[in-house]
């Protein structure tokens, strides 16, 4: 996967030089190791900034809604599904996009790497196809990347882009073995009070910074319900009730649309796994409506269509 960088730069340069796109949305190297930044590039000579590593975990589909230009965008499997969701929801037109697909073998979780060295400062990270070497003051360690993947990448069943105009490498094999919802099933078994305790505990450190919302491509409303002041739908404090209301509503707004890309969890400064909310809804969307978000640009999300045989056992 490490060779993708060269290919991305080559494709981007060609697209801009031939004026087939106005803009490339991609990643550049972060100012710190284990970090990357999103970047928008308009001139062919600046394409050498483009970069690829196992830390390109942000979801670039987040930058698409309502853009007018012709755009070249780098997309992993999950990102491509969010692009499909945007197309279905009319946030961008398919013809505007040149999707540079990245067959993905999983993103490495920088927090897992960081905890490996007890929070010591990582000064340098060197990657090969399978391994990652991290160096810092007085330490050097090499690990297998596959042992430190992000949680959502471990259970990912769609690593190849579902739509693309060009690929930067050969398709990778999709996993068939894992049941992605083991943890959700465990929670489903709990009694209501135990669930309440688990979820209350999960968000007890939430500072309402909204980084999870901002990182999510699905959250493109011009004014989010949490920011509205008139009427004020939800209190703006970190009172546990206000915080829980925010999380429940955020998750339900993503129901049937979330691709489990993990951008929300990665963005959280206090390491809250907010995916525990959305994953339950993903499981429901799959089991009740046979829907996995963003697999096609024709299928509308389950909550915005009606079928006579829709699940309705809960209605008397």
């Amino acid at each position, binding site marked *: 996967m490490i060779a993708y960088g060269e290919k991305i730069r080559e494709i981007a340069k060609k697209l801009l030089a031939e004026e087939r796109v106005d803009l490339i949305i991609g990643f550049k190297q972060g100012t710190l190791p284990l970090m990357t930044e999103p970047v928008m590039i308009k001139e062919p000579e600046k394409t050498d900034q483009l970069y690829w590593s196992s830390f390109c975990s942000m979801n670039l589909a987040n930058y698409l809604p309502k853009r007018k230009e012709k755009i070249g965008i780098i997309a992993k499997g999950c990102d491509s599904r969010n692009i499909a969701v945007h197309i279905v929801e009319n946030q961008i037109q398919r013809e505007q996009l040149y999707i540079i697909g990245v067959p993905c073998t999983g993103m490495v979780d920088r927090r897992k790497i960081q905890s490996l060295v007890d929070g010591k400062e990582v000064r340098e990270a060197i990657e090969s196809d399978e391994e990652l070497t991290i160096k810092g003051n007085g330490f050097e360690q090499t690990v297998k990347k596959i042992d430190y993947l992000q949680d959502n990448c471990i259970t990912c069943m769609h690593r190849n882009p579902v739509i693309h105009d060009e690929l930067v490498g050969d398709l990778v094999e999709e996993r068939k073995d894992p049941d992605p919802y083991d943890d959700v099933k465990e929670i489903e078994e709990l009694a209501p009070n135990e669930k309440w305790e688990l979820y209350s505990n999960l968000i007890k450190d939430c500072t309402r910074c909204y980084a999870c919302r901002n990182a999510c491509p699905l959250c493109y409303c011009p004014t989010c319900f949490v920011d509205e002041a008139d009427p004020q739908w939800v209190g703006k404090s970190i009172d546990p009730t206000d915080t829980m209301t925010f999380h429940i509503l955020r998750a339900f707004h993503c129901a049937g649309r979330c691709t489990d890309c993990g951008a929300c969890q990665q963005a959280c400064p206090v390491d809250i796994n907010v995916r525990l*909310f959305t994953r339950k809804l993903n499981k429901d969307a799959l089991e009740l409506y046979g829907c996995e978000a963003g697999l096609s640009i024709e299928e509308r999300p389950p909550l915005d269509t009606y079928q006579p045989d829709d699940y309705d056992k809960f209605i008397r």
Partner: protein
Amino acid sequence: MGIEPERLHFSWISSSEAPKFAEVATEVIETVRKAGPVKKLVKTRAEVV
């Protein structure tokens, strides 16, 4: 996420189904009463210490 099932009711009642409405409303009241006062998602006044 732990909202008590007793507090959540969905029903589809046409305007011509008065008896069904009365029946459902009574049942909702009974089950909610059994569940007792609500403790979750209630904002209490901030404690000042």
